[in-house]
Structure formats: C-alpha cells, structure tokens
C-alpha cells in the first residue's frame, strides 16, 4: 500500500515539478534578461505552463515519412521512464523514501545512462542529418561526462562507506559534505549540467547550429515528453547533489521535506543561472574539457579522499 502511495506521489510530483520548473526557468531567465517574463496567465504567469501544456496536447502529431517507425515512437518513452524510476530511491525526508535500496546510487547512475540510449534512438530514427548530429554529440558528451560524475560521487561514497542514499544523508548529521569536499561539489555540478544537456553543454540541441538537434522531428506531445524528461532529470540530478553534498533533508525548524525541496530548487537555480550566463562550448572543447581536466581532477580528489580516510 505504501509503495502504491509512493508511486502515485512520485508521478504527481513529476508532473507538478515539471510545471513549476518550466515556470521557474522562464522567470529566472526573464529577470536575468531585464524583462518580467510571463505575467498574463495567473499570478505572475504561474499557470502559463498549464496553458502551454494544454496547447501542446492539442497539437497535431506529425510523423515524418521515412522515419524508423517503432524506434521513433519509442524514443520519448524510453527517455522518460528511467528518470521516473530513479525516484524510487530518493529520500525526501527521513521517512519518505519509496524503497531505500542498499545500492541506491548505482540504480540512479545506471538509469541516467539509459537516457543516452533514448537520445540516440530519437536522433537515428528521425531520418534527418541534423538529428543524427545531435544524437552523436549527445552520446559522446554523456559518455565523457559520466566518468568524472561517477568518480566524484565515489569520493563521497568512500567517506560514508555505503551506496544507500539514506545512509549518505545520515552521515552528514555533523556537517554537510560540501564543506569538506568543495572541489567535488563543483565537479559534480559541472558534470550534472553536462549530463542533463543543459547550457553551456547543450550541444545536442544547439538551436543555432542544428535547428533543434535530436528532437528536431518531434512535435506536440512527443516533444513535450522530451521536455518533461529533461526537467525531471534536472530534479533528479539536483536531488542527488542535495543528498550527497547539502545534507539531504537535514535542517533546523522546518520539516525535513521542506528543507529537501528548498535545497533541490536552489541547486536547480544554479544550473539555470549557468544557462543564461555562458555561451555554448564547442564540441571538441567540450570533450577536451571532460577528458583532460575533469577526469584528472576527479581522480585526484578521489585519491586524496582515500588517503585521508585511510589515515583516520
């Protein structure tokens, strides 16, 4: 029964979260660009996203002629499901976790890798050179940035000694890990931005170069699913950051779940801030950055952490 309630809760959360995040993105970007953003529909445009979602649902689902039909139709679903399943292990507060597995982190990282497959499916099946381009870039980018992500998280896991997210939060009762592992936090944020295909690492959907990258040929509700997956992915990634570095649901006065959401949305705000400040990196610079800078740094961080843990 609890499991069912949890699943329904998660689905609701995903929907509401996407609505909220899209509105937040538009407002944040607007204010950074000296303009007010959506103001018409609802209080300061709060229901704008609902209006947009309704519009998207009413759009014609155009399937281009020569697409690889089943792959094309499956791609939006494949991109969305793993992200949804990652919610199983996220601890929203000390009692609110659907299933605290002792390999929680592994589950999240494994499912994050599945989204790459979906992007490749979408790009390939669209029968469009621009889409293939975007998909190939995405695969290279995701593979390159997964490695420093993993290594960075491993530094924290060494400190805690467990792969379970609840254990990691509990280990931060004295101090948050961001204080002892600031480099890891910055590394993680960078890799997370790249994993979610957000600017400045949004080459797979680089608007000005590839029209719309891998989702060029998707319209209407299918496009909405990609969008939804991206924002939900952002939430997952920010939740992992909160759990690993910012103490999860811990905090004075307010209930744990409120702290959790505050921290998650703070991290998401930083990710959004990146998007509206930096131009896009070039593809070879992106890969060079990952392999020549991030991975050595992450390894160095891991080795130093291991040393210090051994010395204790």
């Amino acid at each position: 029964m609890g499991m069912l309630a949890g699943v329904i809760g998660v689905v609701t959360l995903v929907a509401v979260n996407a609505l909220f995040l899209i509105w937040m993105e538009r407002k944040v970007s607007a204010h950074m660009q000296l303009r007010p953003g959506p103001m018409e529909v609802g209080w300061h445009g709060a229901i704008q996203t609902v209006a947009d979602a309704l519009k998207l649902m009413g759009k014609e689902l155009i399937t281009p002629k020569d697409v690889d039909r089943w792959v094309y139709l499956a791609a939006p679903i494949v991109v969305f499901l793993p992200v949804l399943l990652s919610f199983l292990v996220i601890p929203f507060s000390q009692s609110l976790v659907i299933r605290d597995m002792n390999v929680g982190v592994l589950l999240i990282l494994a499912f994050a890798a599945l989204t790459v497959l979906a992007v490749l499916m979408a790009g390939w099946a669209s029968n469009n050179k621009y889409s293939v381009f975007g998909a190939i870039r995405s695969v290279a980018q995701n593979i390159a940035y997964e490695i420093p992500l993993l290594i960075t998280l491993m530094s924290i896991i060494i400190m805690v000694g467990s792969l379970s997210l609840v254990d990691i939060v509990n280990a931060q009762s004295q101090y948050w890990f961001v204080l002892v592992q600031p480099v890891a936090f910055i590394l993680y944020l960078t890799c997370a931005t790249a994993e979610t295909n957000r600017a400045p690492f949004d080459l797979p959907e680089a608007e000005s170069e590839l029209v719309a990258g891998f989702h060029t040929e998707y319209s209407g509700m299918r496009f909405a699913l990609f969008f939804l997956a991206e924002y939900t992915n952002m939430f997952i990634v920010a939740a992992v950051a909160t759990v690993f570095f910012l103490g999860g649901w811990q905090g004075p006065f307010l209930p744990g779940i409120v702290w959790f959401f505050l921290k998650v949305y703070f991290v998401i705000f930083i990710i959004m801030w990146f998007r509206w400040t930096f131009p896009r990196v070039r593809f070879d610079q992106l890969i060079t950055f990952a392999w020549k800078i991030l991975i050595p740094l992450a390894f160095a961080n891991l080795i130093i952490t291991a040393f210090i843990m051994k010395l204790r």
Partner: protein
Amino acid sequence: MLERGLEEKTYVLNLGPQHPSTHGVLRVELEMEGEFIIKADPDIGYGHRGHEHMAENRTYAQFLPNMGRVDYLHALAYNQCYCMGVEKLLELQVPERAEYIRVITAELNRLTSHFLWVGAYLMDLGAFTPFLYCFDDREQVLDLLDYLTGSRLTYCFYRFGGVPVDIDDDFTAGCRKFIQRLRGRWVDYDNLVTKNVIFIHRTRDVGVITQEQCIKYGLTGPMVRGSGIPYDIRKSEPYSAYPAFDFEIPIGERGDVMDRYLVRMREMEQSLRIIEQALDKLPAGPIMAEKIPKRLKPAAGEVYAAVETARGEFGCYIVSAGDTKPYRIKLRVPSFGNLSILPEIAVDTLVADLVAILGSIDVVVPEIDR
C-alpha cells in the same frame, strides 16, 4: 552545385535557407566528413528583388526609398551614399547643418546595426542574455530615430540636397542622455561577454583572415580592420562632415573572430564620440540646398560614391545618360565581397566554428541579393 561525394566518407549538409543563424535567407552547402567541413559553397539569391533593374525604370527620386531596403540595418548610410552620388551628378551643394544631421543620424544607425549584430552573434554562440541587453540599448536609439525620422528600420530620411526635418532640443537632449547611459553600460558588456572564458575559447584564433586575403578578396569594413588594416572610408576618403570630427579607427591584430568582435565594440564607442562632437558643433543654417530642380535630369556621366557602413564600404556607381531615369546603378554592397571569402576560410573547421565565422562576417543577405 557541389558534386555529391561518391566515397562513403563525405556527406552533404545544407545550412539553410531556413536556419536560425544564417541571418537572412542564405544557404551554405557543406560537404562534410564527420564534423569537419571539406567544402563550403554559399548559395545566394533567395532574396533577389531586382533593385538594380528597378533603378533603371524609376526616376532618381523614386528610387530613393529602395536604398533603405537594400541593407535595412544601416539604412541611413545607404541613403547617404545614394544622395551623395546624385548630388555629385547634379552638382548640388548640401548645407553644413544638413551634413551634420546626416552624420548624427547615420552614426546612431550604425549603433543599432552593431547592437543587433552583437546580440544575434552571441545568440548563435549560445548565450541568450546579451541579446536582450543589446536590444534594450537598441530600443533607446530606435526611439530617438523614430522621433526624428518617423521610421524604426527602413529609413528614407535624406533628400537630394539635405534633410527634410530639422532636429530640435528634445532630440539633442535625448541623444546626450542616451550617450551617457550607454557609456555606463560598456562595463556590463565587458563583464558578460568580452571576459567570458567560453566566449574567448570560441572566438580566439578562429576564422583568421590575413591581410593578403583582404586585398585579394576586396574585403572592407571590420573584416579588414580586424586583420590590422586601418581602412575606414570616413578617414581615408572623408565625406560629408566627417573631416570635422576627431575619432579613432580601432584595429585588431590577428584577424580572428575575436578581433572583429572587438573592433565592432570599440567602433560603437567611437560613434558615440562622433555624435557628441557633432551635437556640440552643430552649426545653424538651412537644412536643404537652395535651388533644387523640380525635374532631376543630371548631365550624362558617371559617378562612384562610397561611404563606410556598419558592414564595410558601400559604393554606389551611377551611370547617367542625361535622362530622368538612371542608365545603370550598381550597388557595390560590402557583404557580397565579404561573404565570398567564406569558402576559403571555412575549410577544415567544425560546424560550430562555421557558425561563429559566418556570424563574424556580419552579412545581411538582402543586400547581397539586392
């Protein structure tokens, strides 16, 4: 048309004609190997409207509005060039106050063109915020020019022999206020764009153009100034009231995309200086020449007039057969020559670099197509 690469390694990708970064209806046919470009062939002519043909079937005055549509971003300079050419043919003397007004408005127009370029260029590179900053500043200028001329984009403000409307104190005060505000904003642009690490990486040593290429391809404008050649028609071949003003010509060193960007940014500051000096020294007097014939029938002959627009040298070559309609008007547009170098400098670059290079050339496709 390019021949299709018969080996399996290369393929053909079309950039355009509908594309967010080609600044107009331009198609570049790319023969690519992976992400590297082997051959780039621009395909122009999608916007060919036959301006030069129209010129032969209209009187000189009837053709004047066309000039604002050739390059709509710096329309006043094009107006100025055409008026200069016809005034030379008619031997009309433009009063000094009118020349000053022409300079002020043309420089303000140059600012709007450069602002749009900076904003659109950074959007091509993926930075969305500077676009809005630039358009904010651009709106201020457009309001000023709208107050004076009645148009926001495709101006047709000059007449043969002067300008039709005089500037008043409101306009002058608005200009000064705008200049002061803008000077305070350069710091913002520097911090947001010029010192941005990713921007520097995207633009340094990309799309290098040598001085020799400048001569061989007949490039003009910020393209040659970015490569270190101080060629600006306002200084080399002064026209209108420019000899009276003190301003510099910013040049770059390496001829890469970054230098062209810096040249255009610094040019904007120089434009502010010119406008300030023009407002300070504005002489009193008439704004139109005295005896302008009702029926313009210039003597037979030819004239070549050139001005410095935001994109480079715009030349108007008018051949008159002694008739009310010109025999031939050739519009020598800067973007035509500037774009012709793309096939050479695009070889062996990535698509992302191509977008950066194409943006730095600052093409306005309608002027290429005329």
